[in-house]
């Protein structure tokens, strides 16, 4: 009880102090010459956010970049050798491959599912319930999603694997595809006789990407659905009168019209894929060749305590996100130009 009270007092004093500081600074600006007042005031309002960004984002980023250039003990400068390690060690190189597959496959399939469902659900009977059903997974935390799907993929000695019971019920399905119903799906890297080498993503990675798609497709659907509803009816009618089939009207009018929305969703899903950690951690923990860069960073830095390599992995994610953000901005600009703005 005493702890709670002192915690409350601390919070109140801290917030009150901050407000008092800002109020004081604001008051001070009124003492400035007129021509500086407006500029000074905007800085007063920017200050809290700036401080939060600098302390919480900028300094850690610079520090992480700095640490990535040191050895694992943070003692001596090793240049880019941590990055060299990432790309020359089989285990870490696989995590980079895996992350690339996550982004490429996860984003593409999510966007396609989102568009297909949004298009065909639009105006359909039961549209709302269909869209809710597909949106709900997105409201579950990715850890929760991972645990749910772990049950789906489970195998012996547990009898809960839904996928096994499905594959078992398909007559004539070979054992390599789960025909016996005794596959431990997340453990097996091969599928249907194909046996990927240790340096390539295995089938179990694809199973994890399915979870990611399951969790993201609802978000994509809802956003696309709103965008499609935003296309003026007259445009579609004009296309129909101009001789377009429904399909042509969708491809030639609706899709270009919602292009900037597609780019935005693709960017968000891509970044989500690059950051993929929760699903991996909750299902395989990165074992059996399923680790991603983000998971590998966590394991390396906080489990194994290798500061240099861990930081280098974190920096790698950062570096990979930059072009995505940049491409998003370019694509948005192009989309705006396309609309003649």
């Amino acid at each position, binding site marked *: 009880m005493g702890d709670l009270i002192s915690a409350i007092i601390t919070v109140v004093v801290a917030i009150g102090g901050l407000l008092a500081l800002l109020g004081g600074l604001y008051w001070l600006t009124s003492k400035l010459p007129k021509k500086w007042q407006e500029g000074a005031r905007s800085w007063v309002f920017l200050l809290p956010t700036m401080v939060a960004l600098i302390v919480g984002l900028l300094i850690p980023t610079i520090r992480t970049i700095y640490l990535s250039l040191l050895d694992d003990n943070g003692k001596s400068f090793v240049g880019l050798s941590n990055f060299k390690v990432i790309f020359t060690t089989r285990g870490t190189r696989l995590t980079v491959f895996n992350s690339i597959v996550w982004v490429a496959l996860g984003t593409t399939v999510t966007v396609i599912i989102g568009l297909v469902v949004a298009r065909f659900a639009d105006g359909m009977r039961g549209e709302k319930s269909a869209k809710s059903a597909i949106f709900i997974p997105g409201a579950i935390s990715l850890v929760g999603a991972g645990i749910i799907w772990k049950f789906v993929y489970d195998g012996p000695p547990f009898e809960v694997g839904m996928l096994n019971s499905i594959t078992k019920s398909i007559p004539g399905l070979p054992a390599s595809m789960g025909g016996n119903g005794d596959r431990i799906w997340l453990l097996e890297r091969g599928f249907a006789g194909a046996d990927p080498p240790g340096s390539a993503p295995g089938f179990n990675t694809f199973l994890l990407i399915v979870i990611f798609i399951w969790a993201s497709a609802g978000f994509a659907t809802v956003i696309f659905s709103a965008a499609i509803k935003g296309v*003026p009816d007259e*445009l579609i009618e004009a296309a*129909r*009168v*101009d001789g377009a089939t429904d399909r042509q009207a969708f491809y030639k*009018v609706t899709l270009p019209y919602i292009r900037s929305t597609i780019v935005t969703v693709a960017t968000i899903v891509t970044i989500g894929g690059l950051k993929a950690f929760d699903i991996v951690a909750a299902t395989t923990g990165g074992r059996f060749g399923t680790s991603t860069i983000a998971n590998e960073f966590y394991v390396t830095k906080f489990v194994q305590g290798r500061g240099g390599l861990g930081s280098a992995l974190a920096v790698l994610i950062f570096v990979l996100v930059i072009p995505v953000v940049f491409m998003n901005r370019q694509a948005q600009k192009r989309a705006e130009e396309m609309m003649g703005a």
Partner: protein
Amino acid sequence: MAGVTLNSVNKVYDNGFHAIHDLDLDIQDEEFLVLVGPSGCGKSTALRMVAGLETITSGEMRIGDRVVNDVEPKDRDIAMVFQNYALYPHMSVYDNIGFALKLAKVPKDEIDERVRKAAGILELTSNLDRKPGQLSGGQRQRVAMGRAIVRQPSAFLMDEPLSNLDAKLRVQMRAEIAGLQRQLAVTTLYVTHDQIEAMTMGDRVAVLKDGYLQQVDTPQNLYDRPVNLFVAAFIGSPSMNLCEAQLNGSELRFGSRSVALPDSLFAARPALRGFDGRKVIMGFRPEDLEDAAISGDQDPAHRFSAQVSLVEALGSELMVHFDLDAAPVDSGDPDAVEVIGEHATGVGRFSPRSRVRPGENVEVALDVANMHFFDPDSRLAVWG
């Protein structure tokens, strides 16, 4: 080229709203027919039914010799100009105009030739590479026209294409569209709520109200011989003056005033005799009034006095508003601006030589030969 025929076409929406009642229209080949009416009269619905964007509940629709009730819009061989133009924002002007041809798999060089020709006619050649967002309202309107004319369709359908333009441009485009239609000689159905557009552009004008066709005729006939009260009040600006009156022999009394009707008037409207001793609705157009001081008609039986409430000097004419103590008449136009008060009001289009002032009493000379009469019950015009 083809005519468009509607036979007892009805439109009932799923919610039970009956938007179009037994509409019969016969648009001749190469004719420019304007469908006009106040807001909510069903004119856009009728046009969209011709386009195939709305289904037909009952009746028959033909384009040329073909019944198109169940034909998709894309297979109707029609081109449509939308109120908001509905240009594809991501396509250049060139692609907007050529879109339909591309869908129809017309060879590339032919598309190019036809798009450039249409752009030439509409003076869009220097804008072919621009996006609709970079164009002015008038230019967008032209692109929308270009998209229609490049198709060389059986019929043009235009849904209030000028309503988004400013007044000056509207007058200019009105003449251009009418001229273009004559030049291309394509059957055209044009929807507007603006009776001036209807009168100036159409070969014939169809007046629609509450989903019922009121009258189809040439603009001049609509103006001179409206079949009912609504058409009489709707066509013409300022509107026809209307008020209740009492016919006693050849004396027509409205409020405390009266005029004498000549025999020639009864000869032209034999049915008017049947209203002797009864109420009748009288109507007279503003241009059939003149300041008696300068009027050529010196017969005191064709005059009445009125108190002037407002004078609008337009240079070439004076719009003189005055009050009458007769009972007002509601023409049934939901868009009418006048508030129906206790007494009827009137407007006269006087010569600018008139010296009337607001507040004064003025002697008004009425050209009785051009008066209109309506049955107060059926609201139909009283003629033969």
